[in-house]
Structures are given as structure tokens and as C-alpha cells.
């Protein structure tokens, strides 16, 4: 119950955190800290190679359980989410002091963190899908934190649509996977991976799951939402878009890697799209001056690197993936928070307008430098070890020159971005800024400083993180126990040569960055034809299509709605009857005495409705039809139904007359001859079809199984002899609960519409 309890704690604390957050209390960080400590207690057990699986029945009939699983991989993610979460919550409590709607913000942020935890800990694929979608919804709320900003609304919507569309593909993949494997349990799926990999549906599963993961992890060409999501407040960017949410796709791929890692399709998809994303992100990062957007594009590069690494088979690739994942989370969260501090303290985050900030903000500058050096992959930082591993994997396992070159380009961009954020803003002469900056308080500095120092600490003592986290996580990802000892220095290897080349190239580009950036930004084809513009075009097209079909279908006239609806019902039913041979006549063996009288009464009242010249007489005549039908029920042994019909008819007449009293319905029928003929045709069609259907129903032999069951079970099991009521309140009580809820909601909704209509008419009168 431990994992379930931790996840539930995260969800249940949301209101409390929201309450503290709206008062800008730094205690909001206590929840992620407590969760971090909770997960850290699992470290010794998990790093010794064992596995923690908990399962609680949830919807057993569908094979969906509230099952949780902690192994190296999910624990690594849980620690990242809660650890960086602690820094982000603390940072936000100072960064957003005095901002509006803070209660809502912290509630959404907490729910987001809880959903992330649920998604990475879930052992049931369906449970994971639920949490996965919750991260989409909460990140939508977080990106759209400033709804008055049009850009924020668009970005929130874009992120939501892209990730949810991918999530639907993933859901389809999960269903196919579940039916191929016969279970939704990840643990069982991993145990039977050969069997599943050989299943004929495996290619479909791979493509669908990859679609979901690619949309969430911003793989090209679905990447544009991530950079646009930078309109969110910086703590959100640091949390969602560097450390956690975008890594959920990476998590899914890593989780499924043991099953599909030998499939050529899996390798091609992941390595292909991963390296494409690296290149796209690298090009885009080189065009920006906004610090957050530069960082966002470098995140896209990193996500591409991760996906490519997962695609490469072998244990070394697994080690490289996990190491790079942890390293990236550390430095990217640190640098995002630094960018936020610069923005917060100077009033701008345009890197071309900033320099010399180290004089004002020495501590921030130091944190930025440490984080930047780790990002650039220089020794003795852990980033160096990660970069060496990426090169080593590229050289040893793929031997593909393209991948190595993509990795080189990506790492060069990393060096440039690190230099822009960590050096450019802080070095050189002082530049004038909108506000006079200074180092922020402890709450804002603690996170970046700790994360930056950890990057250095892990670099100097790689065994700290190597044996406890990286090796267990890599084992989980590879599907077999991995033997690896993480170290900083590998000797003079080809990888070292590549590293030196990377740094040299990176510094060369950085020194000429102003020219490079201007040249890159001048290529306006990227803006004109990129996927971001494509998204806009698609949304415009959708709007136009929806306007077109609304004008076509929703004319606004109630009479034509009713006419069309009835025509379609009658037409569809009649065609079905004719095509499926449903025309049957029952044998009228029994005496027809009372039925015949009622039938005549029905026909007469129906004709009276048709002949009625004003609404009041029409309503009364229609009521007669209803009462006659009620009599029909009464004579055929359904007193309850008759009773209900009587009440409904009476009520309908009362209410309709009340409405007619208020509405301009008193005038005579205004239809022209053609309209009357059309209505007669439709009404006749409905009548004939209904009669044919009823005759066909009567011709069927009566199946008494259900009524026999209810007749026998109603008194002993439900203590009632009125079958209808027993079914309503006992056997199918949950249905009734749903129905009365719908009824109440419909009434409230109708009342809201009517209130709107009344307000509109009274305004028009004025």
C-alpha cells in the first residue's frame, strides 16, 4: 500500500497546497519534499535489484487494477519529479508572490505532480493512461495560467490538443497491447516479452505507443507546442517542460523498451525520429534570443537524444539513456530557474540585451555557470560523463555515422545554449536593464544552487548516483541486470576526441553567435512552413469546416429541426425494415373488442391534432392521444406504465398551456400549402413506420426469461411486488441514479438557456 498511499497523499494534499500557495507560503515545498523522502526510503531495496509491486482491485471485471510498481526506472522518475518538484514549489512561492489566482495555480501544480507520479508508478497500462491524460489536463491549466493573454490561450490549447491526440493513439495502442498480451499489467507484459514481440499486432502497438510518446515528448514534427508553452510562468516551464511532463513519453518508451528493443521497426522509428528531433531542435535553438525559448529548443534536442538512445539496442544505450536523463533534468531545471531569476530581477529575458549581470547577481551567476558547465559537458561535471556515454553508444552500438554526426551537432548546440544562458548574460560589461537587479532570496536561489552543485558532486563522485539509481534503472530498461560502473574518466578514447571537438566547435559558434543567429533567424521559410504554422492552418480549416456544417445543419428553426429529425428516424427505420425483411404481421387471434375502440379513439384524436387550427386546441387534442395510449397500457396489463403516462400527459398539458399563455403562439397556422404537404408526408411516414415496427414486434414470440426472473426474484430479494418499481429502485438502482442526475442536469441547463433567452429579449426591448 506504500506506493498507493504516496500517490494518494499527493492528490489529497492539493487543496492544502493550494491554500498555502495563495498566501505565498514557502511551506508548499513540504509536500514534494515529504514525497521525495518517502521515495528515497525505497532506494536501498530497489538498488539491490528487487522489485516492489502492489495491486488493489479496482475494476477487476475489465482487468484494470490500481496496481503500482517501483523498479529502478519508475523510482528514478519519481525521485526526479518530487526532487525537482521541491525546488520548483519553493521557487514558485517566491517567484509568483502576489500574482493572481495562486490558489488555483498551486492546486493544478500539485495535481500535475501527483498525476506524473501516478503515471510513472502505475503497473497497469489503463491506470497509466488515466494518469497520463490527467497530466495533459493539468498542464493545460498551468500553461494557460494567464487566460487574458491570447498567446497563453493558444499555447495551452495547442499543447492540449497535440498531447491528447497522441494520448488517444496511445490508448488505442494500450488496448491492442492488452488484448495481444491478455493483460494490462506491465509486470506480466515484461515477463512475457518474447511472446508479445512475436505477436502479429506488434507493429501496430509500436506505432501507436510511439505516437503517444512522441506527442508528449515533443518529437519532430510535433515539437512546436513545447516551445510555445514557454508562455507559462517560469516555475511551470522548469517543472513541466524540462524535468517531468515531456519526459513522460521518454518514460513510456523506456518502459516498453525491453519488449520491443529487438524489433527493427522500433529501432528505426525511435532512432529516426529521435535524430530528426535533435536536428530540428538544434536549428531552432540557434535562431532565438529569448532565454526561455532557447532553453526550450535545447530541451527538444535533449528529448530527441533520449528517444534515439532508447531506440538503440544494448545495455550501454540503457545506461547512457538513464544517465543523460538524470543529468538533463538537473541542469535544465537549474538553468530554467536561472532564466526565471534573470527575467524576474531585470524585467527582460532577451539574451542579446543582457550582459555583466554577475556584478549584481553573483550567486545566480555561480549557479548558472555550474549548471551551464554540466550542460556543455565539461569535466568534472556529470554532464561530461553523460556526453561520453552518448558518444560511446553511438560509436559502439550503431556504428551509423549519421547518428554520431547528429549527436555531435546536438552537443555543439548544447555548448552554445549553455554559453548563452550561463556566460553571455553574466560576463562582460554591465548593460542597462528595465529594473535594477540583485540576487533573489533563499527560496528562489536554493533550487538552482542545489541542482547545480549536485551536477558537480555527481561528477566528482559518480558512484553516488551510479549504483543506486542509474544501474537499477538501466537494468529495468534493458530487461536484464546491467553491470556498469559509472566513471568520469575513460582514458584517451575516440569519445574524448569527439568531446574536445564538440567544445571547440561550440565555442567557435558561440563567439560568432550574433552573426549566426541573425543568419538563421533570417530564414523565414522555417516560420512560414514549419509545423507551428501548419497547426494554425489546420485549426483555421477546422473552424471553417465547423462554420460551414453549422450553417448547413443548424438553421435555428425549431420546426425544421423537428421535421428533419422525424424524417430521418422514419426513413432509417423504414429502410432497415425493408432491407432486413422485418415486415411481419401478428395473428389477431384474441378478441379485439376494447382494443378496437381505443384504436378508433386514437385515430380520431390524431386527426383532431392535424385539424387543429390553433395551438391550444392542438395541445389538448395531442393530450387525448396520450391519454388513449395510457388506456391502451391499462387494458394490456401495464398499470404502472399507464399511471406514468397519465401523469406525464397531464403535466405536459399544464406546462404547455402555461407556456402558450406567455408566448406569441396564439396566431393561426402560418404554413403555406407546400409546407403543409411536406409535413403531412413526414407525419404519415412516421406513423406508417411506427405501426410497421410495432406490428413486427408483436409478431415475435414473447421471450419471458427476463420477466420470469424478475417475477420470481422481486419479492424474496427486493421485498416488493411492483416489478417496475423494484427494477427502478433496486435491481437497476444505479441506472436510475444516472437517469435522475441527467434529468436534473437537463432541467438546470434548460433553465440556464431560458434565462439567457429572457435576458436577450428584455435587452432587445430596452
Amino acid at each position, binding site marked *: 500500500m506504500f506506493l498507493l498511499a504516496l500517490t494518494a497523499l499527493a492528490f489529497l494534499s492539493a487543496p492544502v497546497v493550494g491554500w498555502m500557495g495563495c498566501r505565498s507560503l514557502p511551506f508548499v515545498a513540504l509536500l514534494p519534499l515529504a514525497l521525495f523522502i518517502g521515495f528515497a526510503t525505497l532506494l536501498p531495496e530497489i538498488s539491490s535489484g528487487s522489485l516492489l509491486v502492489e495491486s488493489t482491485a479496482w475494476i477487476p471485471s475489465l482487468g484494470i487494477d490500481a496496481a503500482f510498481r517501483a523498479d529502478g526506472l519508475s523510482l528514478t522518475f519519481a525521485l526526479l519529479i518530487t526532487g525537482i518538484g521541491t525546488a520548483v514549489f519553493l521557487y514558485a512561492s517566491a517567484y509568483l508572490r502576489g500574482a493572481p489566482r495562486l490558489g488555483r495555480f498551486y492546486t493544478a501544480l500539485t495535481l500535475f505532480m501527483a498525476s506524473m507520479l501516478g503515471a510513472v508508478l502505475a503497473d497497469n497500462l489503463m491506470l497509466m493512461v488515466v494518469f497520463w491524460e490527467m497530466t495533459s489536463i493539468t498542464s493545460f491549466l498551468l500553461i494557460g495560467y494567464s487566460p487574458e493573454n491570447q498567446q497563453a490561450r493558444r499555447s495551452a490549447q495547442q499543447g492540449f490538443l497535440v498531447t491528447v491526440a497522441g494520448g488517444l493513439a496511445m490508448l488505442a495502442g494500450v488496448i491492442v497491447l492488452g488484448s495481444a498480451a491478455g493483460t494490462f499489467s506491465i509486470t506480466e507484459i515484461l515477463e512475457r516479452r518474447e511472446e508479445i514481440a512475436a505477436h502479429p499486432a506488434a507493429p501496430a502497438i509500436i506505432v501507436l505507443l510511439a505516437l503517444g510518446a512522441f506527442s508528449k515528448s515533443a518529437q519532430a514534427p510535433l515539437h512546436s507546442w513545447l516551445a510555445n508553452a514557454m508562455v507559462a510562468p517560469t516555475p511551470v516551464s522548469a517543472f513541466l517542460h524540462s524535468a517531468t511532463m515531456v519526459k513522460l513519453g521518454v518514460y513510456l518508451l523506456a518502459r516498453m523498451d525491453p519488449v520491443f528493443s529487438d524489433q527493427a521497426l522500433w529501432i528505426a522509428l525511435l532512432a529516426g525520429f529521435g535524430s530528426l528531433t535533435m536536428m530540428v531542435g538544434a536549428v531552432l535553438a540557434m535562431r532565438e534570443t529569448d532565454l526561455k525559448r532557447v532553453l526550450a529548443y535545447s530541451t527538444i534536442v535533449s528529448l530527441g537524444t533520449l528517444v534515439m538512445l532508447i531506440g538503440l539496442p544494448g545495455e550501454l544505450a540503457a545506461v547512457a539513456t538513464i544517465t543523460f536523463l538524470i543529468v538533463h533534468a538537473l541542469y535544465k531545471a537549474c538553468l530554467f530557474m536561472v532564466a526565471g531569476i534573470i527575467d524576474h530581477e531585470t524585467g527582460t529575458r532577451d539574451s542579446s540585451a543582457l550582459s555583466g549581470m554577475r556584478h549584481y547577481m553573483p550567486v545566480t551567476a555561480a549557479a548558472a555557470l555550474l549548471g551551464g558547465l554540466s550542460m556543455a559537458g565539461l569535466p568534472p561535471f556529470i554532464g561530461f560523463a553523460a556526453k561520453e556515454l552518448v558518444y560511446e553508444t553511438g560509436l559502439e552500438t550503431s556504428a551509423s555515422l549519421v547518428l554520431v554526426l547528429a549527436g555531435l551537432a546536438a552537443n555543439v548546440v548544447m555548448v552554445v545554449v549553455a554559453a548563452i544562458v550561463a556566460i553571455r548574460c553574466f560576463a562582460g560589461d554591465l548593460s542597462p536593464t528595465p529594473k535594477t537587479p540583485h540576487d533573489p532570496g533563499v527560496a528562489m536561489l536554493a533550487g538552482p544552487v542545489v541542482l547545480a552543485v549536485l551536477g558537480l558532486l555527481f561528477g566528482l563522485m559518480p558512484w553516488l548516483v551510479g549504483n543506486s539509481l542509474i544501474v537499477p534503472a538501466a537494468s529495468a530498461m534493458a530487461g536484464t541486470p546491467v553491470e556498469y560502473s559509472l566513471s568520469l574518466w575513460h582514458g584517451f578514447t575516440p569519445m574524448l576526441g569527439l568531446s574536445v571537438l564538440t567544445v571547440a566547435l561550440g565555442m567557435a559558434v558561440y563567439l560568432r553567435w550574433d552573426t549566426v543567429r541573425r543568419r538563421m533567424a533570417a530564414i523565414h521559410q522555417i516560420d512560414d512552413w514549419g509545423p507551428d504554422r501548419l497547426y494554425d492552418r489546420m485549426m483555421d480549416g477546422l473552424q471553417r469546416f465547423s462554420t460551414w456544417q453549422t450553417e448547413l445543419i443548424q438553421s435555428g428553426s425549431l420546426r425544421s429541426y423537428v421535421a428533419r429529425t422525424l424524417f430521418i428516424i422514419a426513413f432509417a427505420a423504414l429502410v432497415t425494415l425493408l432491407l432486413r425483411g422485418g415486415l411481419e404481421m401478428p395473428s389477431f387471434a384474441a378478441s379485439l373488442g376494447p382494443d378496437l375502440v381505443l384504436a378508433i379513439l386514437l385515430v380520431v384524436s390524431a386527426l383532431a391534432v392535424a385539424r387543429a387550427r390553433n395551438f391550444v386546441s392542438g395541445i389538448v387534442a395531442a393530450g387525448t392521444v396520450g391519454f388513449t395510449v395510457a388506456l391502451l397500457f391499462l387494458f394490456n396489463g401495464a*398499470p404502472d406504465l399507464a399511471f406514468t403516462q397519465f401523469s406525464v400527459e397531464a403535466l405536459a398539458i399544464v406546462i404547455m*398551456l402555461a407556456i402558450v399563455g406567455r408566448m406569441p403562439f396564439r396566431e393561426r397556422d402560418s404554413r403555406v400549402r407546400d409546407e403543409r404537404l411536406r409535413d403531412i408526408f413526414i407525419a404519415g411516414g412516421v406513423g406508417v413506420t411506427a405501426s410497421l415496427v410495432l406490428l413486427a414486434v408483436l409478431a415475435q414470440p414473447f421471450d419471458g426469461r427476463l420477466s420470469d426472473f424478475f417475477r420470481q426474484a422481486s419479492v424474496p430479494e427486493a421485498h416488493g411486488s411492483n416489478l417496475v418499481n423494484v427494477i427502478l429502485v433496486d435491481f437497476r438502482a444505479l441506472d436510475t441514479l444516472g437517469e435522475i442526475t441527467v434529468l436534473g442536469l437537463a432541467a438546470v441547463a434548460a433553465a440556464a438557456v431560458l434565462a439567457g433567452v429572457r435576458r436577450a429579449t428584455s435587452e432587445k426591448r430596452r
Partner: protein
Amino acid sequence: MNSLILKTTSRLILPAALIFSIYVLLRGHNEPGGGFIGGLIAAAGIAVFAIPRGRTALISMLRVWPKTLIGAGILLAIAAGVPSLLLAEPFLTQQWPFASLPIGTTLVFDVGVYLVVIGSVLTFLSYYLEN
């Protein structure tokens, strides 16, 4: 619709309709009737009362907003399922606590249905009534 005849007769119809509706509600488990029909009868009686008098008179007669009746009804219906949860049975497994008396949680559930039906009809109707 300000008719003296309607105003006078509806004052007589209202209590009769309410009493009859409660009778129908209570007998419903064994005889034709139940919360749905009872609610319709009560709503018809109240509607006849309210139509000549207007919305303000309806609210002051009910003493609550009609929407409140919907919420109360749904809550009651849910509450009828709570005992089964406490006894670790599927939600809304109706309970019969008294061996001799024919009173169970079905009655609570039926009263919930009754209130939702009245509330829905009156919520809808109240927007057609003049002040």
C-alpha cells in the same frame, strides 16, 4: 394567465395533489406508483398552483429554489447507497434493516427520485412564470 377560477380551484388542487402524490410514492414498492409518478403528480399540482400566481409565489410556497430540490434528491439517492458501501456490498444494494417492517433504503432512494422529478419540472417551469 390570471384567471380567478384557476386561482381558486388550484388552492384546493394543491393539497390534494400533494397528499395523493405522497400516497402514490409510499405504495409504489408493491402497487403501481413510486417516486417518479409521485413526483409528476406533485409537480402537476404545484404547477397548477403556480401558473396563475407567478414565480415569487412559487418560491415562497416551496421555501427553497427548485434547483435545491434537484440537488437534495440526487444526494438522497446517493445516500441510499451508502449503507451498502459500509457493509462492503456493491453500491446501491438496498438494505432492509427491519425484519418485520417493510421499510428499507429503497424508500430513501424513491424519495430522492421524487424530489428530483419535482425539482426538474419546477426549475424548468419557473422560467416561464411571470414575477
